[in-house]
């Protein structure tokens, strides 16, 4: 496997001076915000101690020149079938989930497999804010400020072997606290599984998020730790991760198993390859209003052209 040289860092990824200057202010503000959130949610609902994020230094994200989705929309309109299939179900029922304590198991093709508590896992990892577009396969999109760190940083801690070609992620399976997993009518074989190719996981855009909007992740958004892969459809960005397995073979991701003609392994945002049941050429950017659906053109790789090189020579119509 080729390891990309450090020269790959684009000028835009280097923090501008003005942002640097505002860093201290941001930290103070996000600190108060996080503390405020904790009093609202209650300590049992957060995966990490409430003070945890406030005490951390978070590098502010770069604005992308697009209107950010409001926090209330991003935390009340969710696809998290573990809590029900209605968009409002996760916000309604995710509080039933206990995310403290939380451990993540890392297994497979790694030199140092093991189980690790979230706080230990995150010690020594720098957190940064990333303002990303989120494009759902259902043709709607949001712009969300995540707080997290590159996937690569965590995986490297466990020292992948040369046989590690893919990364498989698993969501918690706990029907007693996740009512969607108890549903008789669900066709999903729990737990939810997603996967990335190793080079995709190592791409600097792929992050694990532990927070959003300056606060710890709410349960309905995948607390306490989730994946965010902004150039792929939202279902790839698996939530509430409890297991990471490095594999030789391509993982079988949940939606692909369920409906292989509609959901592929790659799931790259692609306006030229339609979902068999609807067009992917455009999307509804939230918030929409009743008489203005705010439909915008969908961009290749959701506008993240820097990932195009990962797919050179790959027929994206076949590997959708």
């Amino acid at each position, binding site marked *: 496997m080729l390891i990309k040289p450090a020269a790959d860092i684009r000028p835009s990824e280097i923090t501008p001076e003005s942002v640097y200057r505002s860093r201290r202010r941001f930290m103070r503000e996000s600190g108060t915000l996080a503390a405020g959130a904790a009093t609202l949610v209650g300590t049992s609902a957060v995966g990490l101690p409430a003070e945890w994020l406030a005490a951390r230094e978070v590098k502010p994200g770069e604005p992308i020149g697009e209107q950010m989705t*409001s926090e209330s929309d991003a935390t009340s309109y969710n696809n998290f079938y573990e809590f029900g299939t209605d968009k409002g179900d996760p916000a309604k029922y995710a509080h039933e989930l206990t995310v403290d304590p939380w451990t993540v198991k890392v297994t497979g093709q790694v030199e140092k497999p093991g189980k690790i508590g979230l706080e230990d896992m995150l010690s020594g990892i720098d957190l940064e804010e990333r303002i990303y577009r989120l494009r759902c396969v259902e043709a709607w999109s949001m712009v969300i400020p995540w707080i997290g760190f590159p996937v690569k940083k965590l995986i490297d801690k466990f020292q992948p072997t040369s046989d590690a070609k893919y990364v498989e992620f698993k969501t918690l399976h706990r029907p007693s606290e996740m009512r969607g997993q108890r549903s*008789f009518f669900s*066709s999903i074989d729990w737990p939810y599984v997603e996967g990335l190719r190793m080079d995709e996981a190592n791409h600097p855009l792929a992050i694990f998020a532990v927070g959003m909007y300056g606060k710890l992740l709410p349960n309905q958004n995948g607390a306490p730790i989730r994946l965010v892969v902004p150039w792929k459809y939202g279902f790839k960005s698996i939530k509430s991760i409890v297991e990471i397995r490095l594999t030789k073979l391509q993982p079988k991701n949940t939606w692909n198993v369920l409906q292989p003609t509609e959901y592929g392994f790659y799931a790259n945002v692609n306006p030229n390859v339609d979902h068999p*049941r609807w067009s992917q050429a455009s999307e509804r950017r939230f*918030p929409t209003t*009743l008489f203005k659906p705010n439909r915008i053109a969908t961009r290749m790789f959701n506008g993240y052209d820097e990932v195009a090189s990962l797919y050179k020579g790959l027929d994206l119509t076949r590997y959708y």
Partner: protein
Amino acid sequence: MLSKAGLGIGRPQGSSGRPRTLAGAFGSPLRVAKLVVFCLLALPMALLGVDVWREVAQPGSAFGPDPTEEVLHYLGQWGIRILLLTLAVSPASRLLRKPQLVRFRRMMGLWAFSYIALHFAVYLLSKAGNPFELILKDTLYKVSFAVVGFYALVMLIPLAITSTRRWQRRLGPGWRKLHRLVYPAAFAAWVHLLWLSKGDFMDPLIYGLVLALLFAERIVFRIRKERRAAAANAG
């Protein structure tokens, strides 16, 4: 036009010969029952109207971040519910031996059509800002659940138009045949729902079961009728 047909006001009164006034309309229990059913079927629409009003007054207050989609699903849900309810009228009248129930059918069918037509209008609205060809692509020739839903609506249009007594008389026995279109329409509506379902199949399963029962009752009824006829001929 809808409310007139629905309330049964301003139509010839058959043999009763009562004055065609509102006061007269409230005279018979059937009229009162019709008014009640009318209001019940109008209720989801009225509630939607209230929410739309709230939404217009303060965007984002009534439907969350995606109001058009919410309204679309709401109208579609009520459309198929009332359509199935309409299809249940004849079996119910047979099972309960209450032939007068059939008098509610036209109004119910027209309400089902209203919800479904509005559902389609909102769908077009949700595509606003898109080039026209995309609407065409989605609804008319692309293999998609939208196509089946569109067929259901197209089949219901002639039924709504010919729902009046005048058309009933004009078409004679053909009217009954034409109105059998409601079966493929209901089936298409159900396929539309099934097709757009993702991960959770509660709604299509329940509606499918209801639809299957309603179809089964009709088949049983037909077979019995033919047997009775055959027995009568033999006797």
